[in-house]
């Protein structure tokens, strides 16, 4: 802006001088020579003025840079350090920095302090939660142990057929409860990022074959045809075998549970661009369009669940995706827009 002002003044002066010179020349021939000298003198003066103003502008810019730009750069750097690494360091600025800059620094310091406090609070909440879950797990397991062991002792005694089947039912349910407690514990660890994965090379084809054998009985009970697509092969992936098995089991169990009798569930394995894809495709009831955005949420269960029998705890997919992501992979699904069938894909990077 100062530069623009200077130019305007300069051109005004130039125009006035030229106009004056022309007027003199037209009236006095002699004076014309003098007016030419005056004209040159005026131009010289303007140039000196220009140089002066230019210098002044440069000085003003330098001061602005010192007092404004440098502190702003430091503030930006401090913000980056805080955002990236949570480092909170004092920001130094020259004593003459404008009040606004100092206020900005003050406000940033306040804001970062409150963010830090909020984070500390979150950490504390997470710690209390995880302590609570492990205490609760212990509290639940203790009576469950007594129930399980008592049932075991009971089943070792002579029982009528009815009694035996009651005891067997109770045993199965108590085992389910124990498994749920274990799952809750694992979930709380996985969710808090504290779960210690045991990574090792894993043969996915073998994993699928074992899963197939494990689930044939459940599939049979539901009248669902479970099969492994031919040609399943992939180079080993680096994975926690137990956890990936758990993820796969969840996907297969879901597929069987949500597929009506007479349908099928097909497992397949493929590799593309350094990623292994395990697919579980079913001919089941599909996923309602309004549910599709939520199926990976905690405790979410499909609105079209077949029956009470197909009830899960709604934790499977949520934690399965977390596990996949902790392996550098992911879980995705494809459901038909209209009609049955869902395919879940577990993607894992090849080692």
């Amino acid at each position, binding site marked *: 802006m100062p530069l623009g002002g200077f130019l305007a003044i300069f051109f005004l002066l130039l125009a006035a001088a030229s106009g004056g010179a022309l007027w003199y020349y037209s009236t006095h021939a002699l004076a014309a020579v003098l007016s030419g000298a005056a004209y040159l003198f005026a131009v010289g003066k303007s140039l000196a003025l220009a140089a002066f103003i230019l210098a002044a502008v440069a000085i003003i810019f330098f001061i602005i840079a010192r007092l404004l730009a440098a502190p702003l750069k430091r503030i930006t750097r401090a913000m980056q350090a805080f955002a990236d690494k949570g480092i909170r360091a004092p920001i130094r600025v020259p004593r003459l920095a404008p009040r606004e800059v100092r206020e900005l620094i003050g406000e940033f310091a306040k804001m970062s302090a409150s963010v830090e406090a909020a984070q500390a609070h979150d950490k504390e909440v997470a710690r209390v939660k995880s302590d609570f879950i*492990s205490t609760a*797990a*212990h509290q639940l*397991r*203790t009576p*469950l*142990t*007594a129930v*399980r*062991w*008592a049932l*075991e*002792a009971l089943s070792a005694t002579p029982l009528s057929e009815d009694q035996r089947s009651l005891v067997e039912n109770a045993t199965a349910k108590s085992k389910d409860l*124990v498994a749920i*407690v*274990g799952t809750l*514990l694992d979930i709380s*660890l996985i969710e808090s990022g504290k*779960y*210690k994965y045991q990574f090792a090379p894993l043969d996915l084809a073998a994993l699928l074959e074992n899963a197939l054998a494990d689930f044939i009985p459940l599939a049979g009970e539901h009248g669902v045809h479970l099969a492994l697509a031919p040609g399943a092969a992939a180079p080993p992936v680096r994975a926690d075998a137990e956890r990936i098995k758990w993820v796969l089991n969840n996907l297969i169990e879901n597929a069987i549970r949500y597929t009506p009798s007479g349908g099928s569930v097909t497992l397949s394995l493929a590799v593309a661009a350094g990623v292994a894809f395990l697919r579980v495709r079913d001919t089941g009831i599909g996923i309602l369009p309004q549910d599709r955005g939520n199926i990976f949420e905690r405790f979410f269960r499909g609105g079209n669940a077949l029956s009470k029998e197909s009830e899960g705890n709604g934790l499977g997919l949520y934690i399965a995706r977390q596990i996949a992501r902790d392996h550098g992979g992911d879980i995705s699904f494809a459901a038909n827009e209209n009609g049955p069938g869902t395919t879940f894909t577990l993607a894992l990077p090849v080692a």
Partner: protein
Amino acid sequence: MDTKLILVAEDDPVLKNLLGHTFAGKYQTLYARDGAEALALFEKYKPALLMLDLLMPGVDGFAVLEKIRGRQDEFKSVPIIIVSNLGAEKDKQRARELGATDYLVKAENSIDEIVARIAKALGE
């Protein structure tokens, strides 16, 4: 064949009874209700194996484990099987580092399984 003496540190009377039921005839069994008693009985009877709960009043299982593994005599290497309802990886790791022979989460195992692991630890 003479039966071996095992020491069971378990503060829950119900679980103690259920275990006693199973061990009867297989082993001579001593029971301790807390860590201090377990250490005293261990010192006095030098059992062939210790089955140890972790959460007990007073001296806990970790302390018992540490004390026994810190002994200067041959009884420092008596098999110690942790049978607890603490099941977090950090607990298992801590017990392993302190020298536990085996670790079983109570609720996740049947008594039969526990008996099998005791037999294994005793080299039977």
